[in-house]
């Protein structure tokens, strides 16, 4: 019989290729018996080797928000997309604008979103985003009616191939109405509190 122990690298490759979801190092360790669990450092080293072995291949080992996954490179899309008759789902501008507001301004209420967009947000959009598990209710604002506060999820980041909110494209800066005051330091992107980002609307 073959008594050579199976290399950690091979085991990780097997579980990563078989899984449809990204796997965190903790989940990877969990497939080993309690007394044989590899350390995080060992896992990290093996993942690095696996990533290098993808050079020149159609797949890459990628790190996204909820863990590691193999994914078929974007350059392969022209051929791979042909496999399925169904076209990938398209999302409306209304949905993407709502999602962008939730991503950049979280936690945010539906009312806040409507204020920026100037139109009401349909329940279908919120429901679609919740069903895709891209957004979730993270709390409720302590005002009358206790409106739900929405935030994005790891699944949102995974879907858009991001490993954290910091990887989102930078939010455009606002040109000041009173362009005489250029010293305003606007947050480029990730501030969750609206107050910090808003351009002043009157002369101070």
């Amino acid at each position: 019989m073959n008594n050579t122990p199976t290399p950690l690298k091979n085991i990780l490759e097997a579980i990563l290729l078989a899984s449809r979801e990204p796997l965190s190092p903790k989940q990877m360790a969990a497939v080993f018996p309690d007394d044989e669990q590899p350390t995080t450092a060992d896992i990290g080293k093996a993942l690095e080797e696996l990533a290098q072995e993808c050079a020149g291949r159609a797949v890459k080992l990628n790190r996204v928000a909820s863990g590691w996954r193999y994914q078929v490179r974007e350059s392969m899309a022209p051929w791979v997309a042909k496999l399925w008759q169904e076209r990938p789902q398209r999302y409306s501008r209304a949905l993407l604008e709502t999602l962008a507001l939730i991503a950049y301004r979280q936690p945010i209420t539906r009312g806040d979103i409507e204020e920026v967009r100037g139109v009401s947000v349909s329940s279908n959009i919120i429901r679609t985003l919740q069903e895709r598990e891209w957004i979730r209710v993270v709390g409720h604002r302590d005002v009358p009616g206790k409106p739900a506060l929405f935030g994005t999820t790891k699944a949102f980041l995974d879907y858009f191939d991001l490993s954290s909110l910091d990887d989102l494209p930078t939010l455009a800066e606002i040109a000041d109405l009173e362009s005489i005051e250029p010293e305003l330091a606007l947050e480029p992107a990730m501030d969750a509190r609206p107050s910090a980002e808003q351009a002043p609307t009157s002369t101070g």
Partner: protein
Amino acid sequence: MESASNTNTSQDEGPTTDDRQSPDLVLPQDRQHDGRQAEMPFAVVQGQPFTQLPRDLYIPPDALEVFLEAFEGPLDLLLYLIRRQNLDILEIPIAEITKQYMTYVEMLRELQFDLAAEYLVMAAILAEIKSRMLLPRQPSDDEDEGDPRAELVRRLQEYERFKQAAADLGELPRESRDYFLTEVHFEHTQVVRVSPEVDLNDMLSALRDVLSRAELFSHHIIQREQLSVRERMSHIIDRLRDTPWIEFPELFSAEEGRSGVVVAFLALMELTREQLVDLVQHEPLGQIYIKRPGSKLPI
């Protein structure tokens, strides 16, 4: 002072924004066929681009619908009007823009188009700003009120940021569009894949939610419907997969008794109503056949 000139703009405006837009986004520009950015049409209806606000009131009603759908709301429409003329948001010629905006809104109202309330609210805001702009301004007023356009400018800028952010988001790589997940076959020999348990009540409460959302409860027909009828409908359709037609009596069996006959009959009626089957009878008192829609009887 307020300009009375026509809102007509020149034909050869250059590109007005450098928006990077995902092919996914349904923006007015996307409707252009040849991909040129010369002037953004409002909409393309049956191949005809609408590049200007129509001057007379007649545009085909289906054009209006596309026109309205091209915008995400009054802020989006205003941004379009401003950008289309290469104007700086910070220097909106409020009278001009208001005039254009009103033309559009009036046109829609004239045709009794179902216009979202937000468009009318914006019309009121614009009118208010315009009137404030017309008032003589004392230097000291600036301290209190500032530019009457300030709030609108802030909103437009803020909306534009997120409009851009949405376009950027649309360009990020997406699963099953740009990149693809791998799923390598694994032979589940000893492993039993554990399926989640479902409580019947959970399913019923899910049904209650979806039906109240769709307001289907108000529908008395559905309320009275026997579920065994639905079940039987599925069975009849299923039988018609293997054979192009069934003779009427084949649907009924003596063992089912009276209630079974009623269920089969109701199922047949409902299938006919929903046009899932056709009933055919060639001559009075002749045999009745149940067949798939579109299929032919052998006789």
